[in-house]
């Protein structure tokens, strides 16, 4: 069944339990799906746009209120919608980083954080993780000292992930921010895997900038995200245009330079807004999602040779696993080779793990019910049993 010429109707989340590491938290709520139906046309939020002609000032649909609610939800002073977390990183790097400034990132920073630094012509200094896969305050201090010593300049910005994309580990942002602030370095907290998933208090974390992803963790269409900041930095990152056309004398009102004026002018902002009441509720129930993630992780550990590479017990639903000594052994002789595992899962209605993975791979169980979590857990051990893997799985 097609929804356009050559375009299949996507039915992944209707037919399967989807464990895709990047898709789980962005799965739309029913209200967001309804909003997509009604607001799919291009500039659909602009029907009632009036002076001062800016997205965060539109009252119908209630985007103005949504921006205020979003800032409150994050315990920050100001929030703007951005086309994905990456555009938040870009906006902040553009105003905070001057050419050849040292910039702190971490061993788990997303590539778009690096690209934002590259575009601003900053010099990256990565903070290493410790043996347990955690970015520590001590390592942060050491790297700040080294960056300052090497370049002769104080770093102009520090990026830190609240939960990283590689292991789904929770990092001590509050303590890291304290260290950064001792050196007077502003902190950007990347909440792409937390905002909309778990309760995030930007002020408590000590974040000067807080960036979230709508399509990764806020049940919103792509590309969407949020950039929030403090009252002290609002004027800087959300500065309004001052430019004037030299021939026409035109000026451009209160458009914000780093936002390139209005950002999400249609289905993305309304989808995000439609999911927001549900998102506010679901963050209060994150402990259940962690419980379900541990049901799955524990079942994998019953399969001899399997290792959970993320911190364990799990504190987040994104999990990295090593099955080189279990499922990969099967792959060596199986007629489907490395595809046997993802194929067997798909036959049982589970998808989202990178096809062909049998060594090191990730899954994200966010959004499953307890029943679905138990089904996933049982399915992993059943596939192991069927393929002669020993363990305590039966």
């Amino acid at each position, binding site marked *: 069944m097609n929804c356009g010429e050559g375009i299949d109707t996507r039915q992944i989340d*209707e037919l399967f339990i989807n464990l895709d590491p990047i898709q789980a938290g962005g799965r739309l709520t*029913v209200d967001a799906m309804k909003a997509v139906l009604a607001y799919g046309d291009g500039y659909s939020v602009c029907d009632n746009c009036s002076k001062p002609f800016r997205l965060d000032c539109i009252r119908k649909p209630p985007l103005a209120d949504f921006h205020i609610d979003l800032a409150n939800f994050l315990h920050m002073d100001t929030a703007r919608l951005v086309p994905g977390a990456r555009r938040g990183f870009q906006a902040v790097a553009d105003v905070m980083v001057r050419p050849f400034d040292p910039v702190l990132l971490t061993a788990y920073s997303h590539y778009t954080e690096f690209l934002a630094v590259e575009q601003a012509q900053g010099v990256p200094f990565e903070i290493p993780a410790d043996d347990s896969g955690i970015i520590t305050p001590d390592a942060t201090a050491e790297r700040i000292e080294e960056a300052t010593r090497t370049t002769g300049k104080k770093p102009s910005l520090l990026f830190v992930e609240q939960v990283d994309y590689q292991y789904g580990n929770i990092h001590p942002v509050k303590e890291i921010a304290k260290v950064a602030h001792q050196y007077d370095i502003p902190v950007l907290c990347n909440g792409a895997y937390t905002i909309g998933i778990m309760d995030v208090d930007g002020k408590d974390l000590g974040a000067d900038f807080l960036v979230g992803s709508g399509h990764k963790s806020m049940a919103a269409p792509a590309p969407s995200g949020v950039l929030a900041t403090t009252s002290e930095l609002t004027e800087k990152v959300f500065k309004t245009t001052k430019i004037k056309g030299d021939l026409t004398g035109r000026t451009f009102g209160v458009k914000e330079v780093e936002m390139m004026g209005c950002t999400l002018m249609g289905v993305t902002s309304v989808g995000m807004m439609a999911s927001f009441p549900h998102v506010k509720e679901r963050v209060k129930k994150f402990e259940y999602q962690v419980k379900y993630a541990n049901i799955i992780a524990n079942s994998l550990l019953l399969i001899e040779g399997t290792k959970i590479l993320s911190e364990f017990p799990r504190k987040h639903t994104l999990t990295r696993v090593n099955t080189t000594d279990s499922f990969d052994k099967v792959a060596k002789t199986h007629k489907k080779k490395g595809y046997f595992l993802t194929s067997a899962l798909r036959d*049982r209605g589970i998808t989202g793990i990178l096809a062909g993975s049998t060594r090191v791979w990730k899954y994200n169980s966010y959004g499953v019910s307890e029943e679905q979590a138990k089904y996933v857990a049982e399915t992993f051990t059943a596939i192991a049993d069927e393929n002669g893997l020993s363990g305590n799985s039966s």
Partner: protein
Amino acid sequence: MSKRAVDAVFQGLYLLTDIRGVLRDTAPKHKLSSEQKTETEKIIGKLERQIAILKEELLA
């Protein structure tokens, strides 16, 4: 202009979306609990009313 027909189209799409939500919640087996069955039955009843409105407004 038939506002009633337009409303029925959107209402129908929203009701179908509610069913889409049930399919997602129960994937992959789609074995509905008795509560989910009762809810889905109600939704289908409302959907049938929207289809009846569309017939009245557009085909009568």
